[in-house]
């Protein structure tokens, strides 16, 4: 393995656990993991297993007609868990729509994760209760929100950090470049966490960029780290380094977590139309859960008791998700008008009243429609 300290571009590739589950020593990264115990490794492992189970259950719910759509994170568990578990409660994350493992770590309720995908609401949770904005569907837009939030944190004199999660496809959006410019100019405490999962629906990353995505950061004056996104320890270490830089006035960091979207873009997608099967097989060998399992095994931490306990946690999460999803009541018709504005609006109030009157006309009792 070769590496250099983050910030000294070009960074090669930070990997601390090989696909075979062998721990690779790193002079620069290991000090950031001194406190990670065997129990912590187990916790990270269980997080990944649980979120994969949640993902599988949500896909099943979509196939059964209970969800309109679902964007699977299969294969990206380490990138999301390793980064999100590095954060503090007072940090704030701004994500795209695939960061369901990040939402899990932030404490978002399982039912709240699927509320949007069932069509019950345009967002699932209160951002302020979990330190996580509701996902942005417009690609790359949230990188600017994270940068603005970071400016506010900087002005407030706190050491809280904003994290923007986005994908390889988003790097082509102008908003991401503008966010990098602003973050660099103001040395905002923000981490640009790019999950390069190799595909933007059907477009390979090579169409977005001729160079490694992390190499762009240097052009903006932002240090970058390229990390094995399927290695939860490497992601944890990289995120901690970037957080430290941001908390101590060192400004933004760009992390490229090299990972792979093993499933479709969403349940509406068919990757067999554009993706060679051999590529998927190649990445299966680098599966983030498999490699941590191998590491735990080599450390003597993998036991049948642990397997049972982990399966129990995962099944309980899946059951909670399923029950919560199916139990969601359809919203009341007139709530379609709610919260367009924070203050009264005569034009909209009139439309609401007219529609309420129209609905009531179907009710022979004259009661509430």
């Amino acid at each position, binding site marked *: 393995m070769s590496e250099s300290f983050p910030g000294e571009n070009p960074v090669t590739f930070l990997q601390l656990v090989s696909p075979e589950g062998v721990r690779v020593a790193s002079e620069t990264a290991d000090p950031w993991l001194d406190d990670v115990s065997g129990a912590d490794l*187990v916790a990270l492992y269980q997080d990944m297993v649980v979120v994969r189970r949640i993902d599988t259950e949500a896909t099943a719910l979509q196939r059964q007609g209970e969800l309109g759509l679902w964007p699977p994170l299969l294969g990206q568990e380490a990138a999301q868990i390793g980064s999100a*578990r590095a*954060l503090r409660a*007072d940090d704030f994350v701004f994500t795209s729509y695939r960061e369901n493992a990040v939402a899990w770590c932030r404490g978002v309720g399982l039912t709240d994760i699927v509320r949007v995908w069932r069509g019950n609401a345009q967002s699932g949770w209160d951002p302020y209760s979990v330190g996580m904005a509701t996902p942005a569907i417009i690609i790359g837009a949230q990188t600017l929100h994270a940068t*603005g939030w970071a400016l506010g944190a900087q002005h407030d004199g706190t050491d*809280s950090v904003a994290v923007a999660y986005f994908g390889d496809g988003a790097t082509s959006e102008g908003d991401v470049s503008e966010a990098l410019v602003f973050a660099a100019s103001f040395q905002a405490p923000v981490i640009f966490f790019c999950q390069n999962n190799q595909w933007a629906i059907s477009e390979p990353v090579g169409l977005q960029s001729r160079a490694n995505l992390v190499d762009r950061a240097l052009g903006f004056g932002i240090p970058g780290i390229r990390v094995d996104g399927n290695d939860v320890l490497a992601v944890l270490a990289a995120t901690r380094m970037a957080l430290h830089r941001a908390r101590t006035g060192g400004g933004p960091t760009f992390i490229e977590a090299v990972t792979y979207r093993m499933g479709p873009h969403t349940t509406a997608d068919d990757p067999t139309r554009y993706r060679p099967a051999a590529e998927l097989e190649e990445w299966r060998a680098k599966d983030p859960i498999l490699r941590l399992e191998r590491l735990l095994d080599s450390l003597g931490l993998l036991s049948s008791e642990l397997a049972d306990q982990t399966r129990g946690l995962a099944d309980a999460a899946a059951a909670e998700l399923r029950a919560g999803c199916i139990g969601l009541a359809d919203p009341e018709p007139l709530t379609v008008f709610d919260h367009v504005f*924070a203050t009264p609006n005569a034009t*909209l109030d009139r439309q609401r009243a007219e529609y309420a009157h129209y609905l009531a006309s179907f009710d022979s009792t004259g009661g509430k429609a």
Partner: protein
Amino acid sequence: MTMTTMMRPAASALLGQTSGSGGSAPRPGESLPGAPLSTPVPLAGTTTLTMAKAINAGLRQAMLDDPKVVLLGEDIGLLGGVFRVTSDLLAEFGARRVIDTPLAESAIIGTAVGLAYRGYRPVCEIQFDGFIFPGFDQIVSQVAKLHYRTQGRVSMPITIRVPFGGGIGAAEHHSESPEAYFTHTSGLRVIAVSDPQDAYGLIRQAIASDDPVLYFEPKRRYHVKGEVSPELGAPMERARVVAAGTDVTLLCYGALVSTAKDAALAADDEGVSIEVIDLRSLSPVDYETVEASVRKTGRLVITHEAARSGGLGGEIAAVVTERCFDYLEAAPVRVTGFDIPYPPAKLESHHLPDLDRILDGVDRALGRQR
């Protein structure tokens, strides 16, 4: 170092134990709803100011009232903005509250969204009307929708100031009237100011609003002077009758308010009484005031610099026709810019409604064909 804080307890005790120095992320509840509007105004009673200076005074007061008010824009610091609307505010409030940004309109709006998420009350300056479009997506997809998207949990008290309109002999992209794009967008309030006093009161109301506000400033009136007192004026969503009349209702906003008032004076000489209404709020439109006038006059003329098709005039004509059909003596008349890209400066006088074209529209509303 300490291992991470987690919102969701992990299986490991160590993984879930610590809290950050700041506790949980702040909820901007303290500054909501509405910003304070009650503190003394630095204007010493009534003063004569240009519109640009009146807006400056309003911005300054808003910044004194609420430390969460921050300004973002291109050249707004040392230069004071290309129209000097933010003059001297950098010196008074510092670079953290008067932020000279890189040249990226989407980022000006997008970072304002992030600031609002954190409880700030950002005021963005878009340098010229024609430069707003790189920021259009953030305005339409984020600023306008976040309150709805989050079921009211996240407010976007963002004011976006936009110098707009023509008549200054400018190059392309410096004279446009893009307001209808925003009045068509749910979740935005849109206002246009017309004189120094109203510009002062409305900038303070816009900043204090918990809803996002597009605040259009008619750039050809920036240097027209008027009396300004520390009054907020009528509520932001209300229109105002600026000249009472009985024969025709004439709706206008922005730079054309002055032209419409001149038209009313000229018509008066010919025995035609025009009621001129400055809409002020373009979204929502104050139909109560508009309908009351039309029920009285039975005739409606609407004027704006923006192109006619899909413009605000068409929407108002439709609503008035729906609600006041039995009172109308004639079809509503629109006197507007043409459906053309903004023309070269030497041709703009043909595009912009002027006193004569407005009077021609009034004649048509009265059934007097030339």
